[in-house]
């Protein structure tokens, strides 16, 4: 019993990291008014390049930074298109998602010579700080907490955060007050994609230790949903990510038990995490409102 509780808790913390990092990044980006649906692709590509950087350098931490760097580059691409060229916010994201499918499938073969999957050697994976037979606690979990709280503090307690929110709520007013709307929007986009990149590298060099063609498995989209449910708030996104991870793990434990799986169809138990998360988050937070200028390019009159 105790084993089970510990395992579920550790499992939820572990599973939460990529979703929460991406959600937090997306919160900042959208608070500044830039929608990016390319996080799925960023996670995927960063998982590949993160592992590549880790193996080239021999250090998993370099791998994580490398993943964040790839995320940053993709964020700059998105920022350049949406902020400076005033392009559509959705299309580039779709493009990145599709590009990632090709780049990663091809990249695994091109870099490591085996198709479809690559095992990251265990000596260049992040070692857990707590190690139990049924799951460990990665230092990245703590880093995620730090990033979330720091982001939350900056976003809601500092002048920088006020400017970020201002360019997403009312860029005209912000512009009139002398805030460089384009710069803040661009940097917020890059920040969001960088966090997603970190989350992607975490998948391969920390949590799972493999690179596969579809390792992101929809986490980028779950993170976007989580961002909306959180009402564009990093700490609530953290809680949402944890709740989702918790019930996802719990559902696996429950349906693995043969006594239960004989009675309740496993498909039903498997949908519970989604339903419960929606109920809890929607019930507590209630109605949420996106930033007013979210997804709209700002052109100075």
């Amino acid at each position, binding site marked *: 019993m105790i084993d089970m509780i510990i395992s579920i808790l550790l499992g939820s913390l572990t599973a939460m990291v990529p979703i929460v990092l991406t959600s937090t990044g997306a919160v900042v980006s959208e608070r500044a008014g830039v929608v990016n649906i390319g996080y799925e692709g960023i996670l995927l590509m960063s998982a590949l390049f993160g592992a590549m950087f880790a193996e080239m350098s021999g250090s998993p931490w370099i791998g994580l930074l490398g993943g964040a760097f790839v995320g940053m580059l993709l964020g700059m691409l998105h920022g350049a298109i949406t902020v400076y060229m005033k392009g559509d916010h959705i299309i580039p994201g779709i493009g990145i998602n599709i590009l990632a499918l090709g780049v990663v499938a091809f990249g695994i073969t091109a870099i490591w010579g*085996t198709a*479809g999957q690559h095992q990251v050697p265990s000596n260049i994976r992040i070692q857990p700080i707590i190690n139990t037979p049924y799951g460990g606690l990665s230092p990245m979990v703590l880093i995620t907490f730090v990033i979330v709280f720091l982001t939350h503090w900056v976003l809601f307690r500092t002048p920088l955060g006020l400017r970020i929110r201002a360019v997403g709520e009312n860029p005209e007013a912000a512009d009139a007050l002398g805030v460089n709307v384009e710069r803040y929007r661009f940097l917020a986009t890059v920040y969001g994609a960088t966090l997603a990149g970190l989350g992607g590298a975490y998948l391969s060099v920390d949590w799972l230790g493999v690179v596969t063609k579809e390792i992101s*498995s929809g986490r980028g989209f779950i993170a976007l949903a989580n961002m909306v449910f959180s009402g564009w708030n990093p700490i609530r996104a953290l809680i949402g990510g944890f709740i989702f991870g918790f019930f996802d793990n719990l559902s696996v434990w429950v349906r693995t038990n043969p006594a239960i799986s004989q009675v309740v169809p496993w498909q039903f138990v498997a949908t519970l995490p989604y339903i419960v998360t929606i109920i809890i988050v929607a019930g507590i937070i209630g109605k949420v409102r996106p930033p007013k200028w979210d997804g709209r390019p700002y052109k100075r009159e």
Partner: protein
Amino acid sequence: MKKSVLALFLIGVLAFSVVASGCIGGEKTTTPQTTEEKPQYAGKIAIVYDVGGRGDLSFNDMAYLGASRAAKDFNLELKEVQSKQESDYLPNLRTLAQSGEYTIIIAVGFMMTDAIKQVADEFPNQKFAIIDGYVPDKPNVMSILFKENEGSALVGALAGLIAANDGKDKVGAVLGIEIPVLYKFEGGYRFGVAWAEDYYKKKTGKDVDIQVLYTYTGSFTDPAKGKTAAQAQLGQGAWVIYQIAGAVGLGVFDAVGEYLQSQGKEFGPPFAIGVDSAQDWIKPGVIIASMMKRVDVGVYKAVEAAVKGTFKGGIVELGLADGGVGVSTIDDVKAMFNSLPEDVKKKKLEELGFKSEDELFAKLEETRKQVPDWIWQAVDELKQKILSGEIVVPKAMNKEQIEAIRNAKSWQEMEELAKQWESSS
């Protein structure tokens, strides 16, 4: 500001492309590789790989093994064609068929089923074979399928005996999406576990009741789901876990590996069991064996039939008796490993932390020695009994049948079911 940001961005793109081209440029990307042109060949055969392509250490590599062996034995020229994406299947097959030079064209993987059906109609005189695809009604297409239930029964017996021998009462199975094909695996595995209970009782006089924990993860692609499921099963006492879940299974290996690591152990138990190809090399020490689908045997048989004139359209199901399925041996891993190009081999060894191939194989031997000889002999005994027809392994094809197997108390009961199903079909 705008300019500097743009400049920064361009530098980024440049750096990105340099990195990308650096790691990609060194590889050969030429696709169809023909063996050297020599006039004295007796004929030509062609093989079309799935998107994964050569180097997957699974389906495609095994298909190559079979095709190259057949090419050598029957003195044929082998043409390999790689599919870069799914939309390549049709044009690849069509181009090959159009030339009319090939004795047989072999498509690897069930993904090509529809393409094969179409091309088979367009070229009724061309012989085709498809591995793992179900095309029952074309006179010029040979569908090669495998009796996964028989192979799964063997690894089930292995799992059950390892658990019983260590005084444990649970084994696990992590499966992909709940589709009827997987029932074949699950049913066979359950049969093997039940057989192991009986065998253990007869051998030691001790009663054992081994439960099978099973999780359908609902995915073939997300390793995280496999890892969570395997951790849940380990946490509930599963001692050996059989993965039948594609990429999800990689998470199973990782979970078992971490369990061992946390206990400071280099070798199992607990063990994981691989599937489809000899996956033992993926995590030496963790994977005790794999349930192999011998794609190479399937390809060889297809070529043989075409060359000897015994080719017939329809379903050919390869079981234990035909060498179509089985438990992996070290030799299987060796054969697979040796089919890789030298540089890839070297890279793989380096990643696994071995200095030479021999070290890897020694480690695999060592892994197998963690299990007493009598267990391996017992598995072999079951194999002989299935071969001789003394034991029939049930083949569950739908929900009803798998439920019947899940509820059966003993392997004899399951065998009864198998006989009923066989006589009714």
